[in-house]
C-alpha cells in the first residue's frame, strides 16, 4: 500500500507558505499580485462548478428530474396539440395556453429538481462534507444556484423549442402572433427563475421535506386552483408562478393588474428575494 505521494500541491510546501503568512492571518493572500489571485479564484469557481456538475451526474434523482421536466413539457404540449388543437378554442384563442400546456406538469419536476439539488445536502447532512471542501458558504451556494440555473436554462430552451415545434406540427399556424418573441423568451426564463426560487426557498428553510411539502403543492395545486377563486384572484396573481406564467400568454387578461413583461419581473423579484434569503440563512446556519 503506497503512502499517498505526489499530489500537485505537496503538503510540505503548502504548510510552509501558510505558516509564513501567519502574521497577516485575517485577510487571504492580498500580498500576492492581483492577476494570481484572480486566476486562483477563477480556478476555484471552475472547480466548484465541475464538482457540483459531478454531484448532479452521479445521482439519479438529480439528473432525472430535469430530463423528466423537458419530456413532460414537450410531450404533453404535443399530445394535447394533436388531440385538441383544432377543436378546443381555449387553446387556440390564446396560443400561450396550448403552447405551454406541458409546462404545467413539467414545472412540478422542476420544483422537485430545485428542492432536491440543495435539500438533499441538508437531508443527508452531506452539507458538512461539502462545506469542509468549500468553506466559503456564499461560494458554495453560488455554485448550487449556477448549476441549477444552467440546467433549468437547458430545460427552458429544449422545452420551449420542443413545445413550439410540437405544437406547430399538430396545430398549424396557431403559435404565430405578435407576442411570439416575448412568450418564447418567457418560456426559456420561467424554468430558470422557478429553479432559482426553489433553491433559495429550500436554503431558507434548511430542510428538504419542509421545502418539498410547501413548494410542490403550492405551485402545482394551490396557486392554479386559487386563481380561479374570485376573491383570492387579486392576491394569487402576484405569486411567482402565476406572475411568471402571465408572461407566457399571448392575450391580455383584464383581471391581471400588471403587464406581461412585468409578470416576468415580479417572478424575478421573488427568485431574487428567495435567493438572498437562502444566502443569509446558509451563512448563519450551524451544522
Amino acid at each position, binding site marked *: 500500500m503506497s503512502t499517498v505521494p505526489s499530489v500537485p500541491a505537496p503538503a510540505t510546501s503548502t504548510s510552509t507558505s501558510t505558516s509564513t503568512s*501567519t502574521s497577516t492571518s485575517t485577510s487571504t493572500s492580498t500580498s500576492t499580485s492581483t492577476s494570481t489571485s484572480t486566476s486562483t479564484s477563477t480556478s476555484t469557481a471552475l472547480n466548484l462548478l465541475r464538482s457540483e456538475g459531478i454531484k448532479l451526474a*452521479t445521482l439519479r434523482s438529480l439528473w432525472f428530474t430535469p430530463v423528466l421536466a423537458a419530456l413532460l413539457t414537450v410531450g404533453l404540449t404535443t399530445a394535447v396539440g394533436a388531440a385538441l388543437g383544432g377543436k378546443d378554442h381555449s387553446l387556440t384563442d390564446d396560443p400561450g395556453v396550448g403552447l405551454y400546456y406541458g409546462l404545467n406538469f413539467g414545472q412540478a419536476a422542476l420544483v422537485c429538481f430545485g428542492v432536491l439539488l440543495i435539500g438533499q445536502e441538508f437531508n443527508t447532512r452531506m452539507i458538512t462534507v461539502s462545506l469542509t471542501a468549500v468553506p466559503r458558504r456564499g461560494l458554495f451556494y453560488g455554485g448550487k444556484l449556477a448549476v441549477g440555473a444552467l440546467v433549468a436554462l437547458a430545460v427552458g430552451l429544449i422545452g420551449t423549442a420542443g413545445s413550439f415545434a410540437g405544437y406547430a406540427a399538430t396545430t398549424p399556424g396557431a403559435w404565430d402572433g405578435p407576442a411570439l418573441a416575448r412568450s418564447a423568451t418567457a418560456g426559456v426564463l420561467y424554468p430558470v427563475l422557478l429553479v432559482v426560487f426553489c433553491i433559495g426557498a429550500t436554503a431558507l428553510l434548511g430542510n428538504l421535506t419542509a421545502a418539498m411539502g410547501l413548494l410542490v403543492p403550492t405551485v402545482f395545486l394551490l396557486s392554479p386552483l386559487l386563481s380561479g377563486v374570485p376573491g383570492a384572484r387579486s392576491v394569487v396573481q402576484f405569486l411567482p408562478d402565476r406572475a411568471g406564467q402571465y408572461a407566457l400568454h399571448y392575450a391580455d387578461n383584464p383581471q391581471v393588474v400588471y403587464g406581461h413583461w412585468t409578470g416576468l419581473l415580479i417572478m424575478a423579484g421573488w427568485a431574487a428575494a428567495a435567493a438572498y434569503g437562502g444566502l443569509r440563512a446558509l451563512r448563519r446556519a450551524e451544522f
Partner: protein
Amino acid sequence: MIEVQGLTKEYDGKRVVDDLGFVVRPGVVTGFLGPNGAGKSTTMRLILGLDRPTAGHALVGGRRYAELADPLRQVGALLDAQAVHGGRTARGQLRWLAASNGLPNRRVDEVLAQVGLTEAAGRRIRGFSLGMRQRLGVAAALLGDPPVLLLDEPVNGLDPEGIRWIRTLLRDLAAEGRAVLVSSHLMTEMALTADHLVVIGRGRLLADDATTEFLQRHGRTRIRVRAVDRTKLAALLGGDLGSLGSGTVTAEPVDGDAWEVSGAEPERIAALAAANGVVLYEIAVQQDSLEEAFMRMTADSVEYRAAAA
C-alpha cells in the same frame, strides 16, 4: 498543526465548549478523549468552521479554516461517515470531492485502494456497512494528501481487523510528519494509538499530556502483595506504613489472601517483610489502565451519569 485558543461555544446560554486551548502537533497522534456530551464533536465542528465560536478561535496551519484555499489539501476530516447520499457510488462521492479542490481523479483510485474499497468503488453507498462507510470517510479525508487530519470516532462500526487497520494507518500517517487528531471513547484503543492525549469534560480542558505521563499522573500505582502466612501479612500491613513511601500509604485486603498497597515503593515493602520475617511469594506493581485513569479524572464531569450507577 492545529491551534485552539480560548475556544468557547454556547448554545442557548449553555456552555458546551468552555475556554478550551490545546495544540495538535505534527508527527504524533493526539487522542481527543472525553465522556459523551463533553464537547468533542462540537470542538471539531468549530475547528472546521461548521459552527461559529462564541469566543476564541481555532487555527489550522496558522489560519482559520474558512480562509484556506483548497482546504482538502491542508486538512482531511471525517466527522460523520453517515453524512453521504446513499444513491451515489463510493467513486462518485470521492469524485465530486476531488473536483471541488482541483485534485486529480487519479487520487480517487489511490485512496480507494488505500482503504481497501477498490472492489466496492462502483457500488452505491446505500448498501455499505457502517465499517465500509467509515473506510470511505477515511478515504475522503486522505484525498488531498493533507498535513493535518481530524477524525471523529473513526473506529466506530469497524470490526477488530478494521480497528487494527486504522490504528496502523493513523500511526503511519503521524510518522510521515502529519498532525493527527482523533477522538474516541474507546480508552484502550487510544492507549494503543495516541502518543498524546487531550482530555475534556463538560467542555473544559482536563488534561493535555503525553499518554505515558497522563497514566503516571492520573493512574494509581498499586503493589499487589501475597505472603505464605496471611495473618502475619495482615498484622504487618495493618500497622504503621509511614516508612513505605514518601506520601500517604494505604493498604487494603483484596480477593482473599492478597493485599494492595498504594503510595508505597516495592523495595521498601520487601525490606519491611524481610525485617519482620514475613515470606512474600508475590509482589507485583500494577498500573491503572487508561480507562481507569480516565474514569477517575472525569468522574466529576460526566454529563449524563446513569441514575443507577
